[in-house]
């Protein structure tokens, strides 16, 4: 196994309203699923850029259950995300809805995360669906821990 290629993250826009992130993990779907649903584990990795911590991680991982993640940094800045779980199929699928509070809530982001066994571990595919192209564009500018990229922004002709 070559970790450099196996672990490489892909991140792309799809259509006008989707963002798709893929990433391989050298662990079972059960483990990756648990790391996405157990607050004690989420607090260790879902932190975004260096310098941020997640002091509040409340998470009721069952259909209809709510969650709330709060981040802060040393300068006292902070924001939070709230959401609801729509569907949980351990260990292969999580569907949830989330919004960021900055402090006004952003439009709902519908997120489907799949964990598929791929022989050497797990391939995660996270597919976000935003209400419209404007929202996706705004999210590109304000998203943080769920950062994303629009390939068109690279302005291919500038290369």
């Amino acid at each position, binding site marked *: 196994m070559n970790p450099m290629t196996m672990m490489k993250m892909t991140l792309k826009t799809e259509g006008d309203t989707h963002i798709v992130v893929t990433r391989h993990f050298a662990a079972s779907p059960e483990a990756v699923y648990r790391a996405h649903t*157990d607050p004690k584990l989420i607090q260790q990795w879902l932190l975004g850029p260096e310098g941020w911590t997640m002091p509040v991680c409340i998470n009721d991982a069952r259909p209809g259950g709510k969650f709330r993640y709060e981040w802060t940094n040393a300068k006292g800045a902070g924001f939070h995300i709230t959401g609801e779980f729509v569907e949980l199929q351990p260990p292969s699928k999580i569907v949830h809805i989330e919004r960021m509070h900055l402090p006004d809530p952003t439009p709902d982001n519908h997120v489907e995360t799949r964990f598929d066994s791929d022989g050497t571990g797990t391939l995660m595919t996270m597919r976000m669906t935003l209400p419209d192209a404007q929202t996706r564009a705004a999210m590109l500018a304000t998203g943080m821990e769920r950062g994303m990229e629009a390939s068109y922004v690279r302005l291919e002709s500038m290369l």
Partner: protein
Amino acid sequence: MHHGSNLNVSFAALADPTRRALLSRLAHGEATVMELARPFEMTQPAISQHLKVLEEAGLIVQRVDGARRPRRLAKTGIDAMDQWLAMLRNALEKNYDRLDEVLAAMEPGQETKPNKEMKSNTKMEPTRKGKKP
């Protein structure tokens, strides 16, 4: 984030395919409204409207050259967006690099039972799950 609102406008400006095409054209060098309108099946006023959005988003600038008003890319605006996207990508990659470590500490079998040998160099509390009331 301090760049938030400006970048918000910049990314919103890019939600339109005509405006992305105009930026791609301008990446090859400055051009007037007439030159920019030529490859598009759009009127000059329609193109001007798109250019106005791009200008307000800080992505292009115009200069005065006699009667001409050629537009060109605003390097600072484009650079700010590029930097922001790199930061976002970097933030996600950092998340998943950390997740790799979390998973390495869990495996094998930790998803079903606590791993007693786990060292305390992480903040995980491996025995708690099994002792939960």
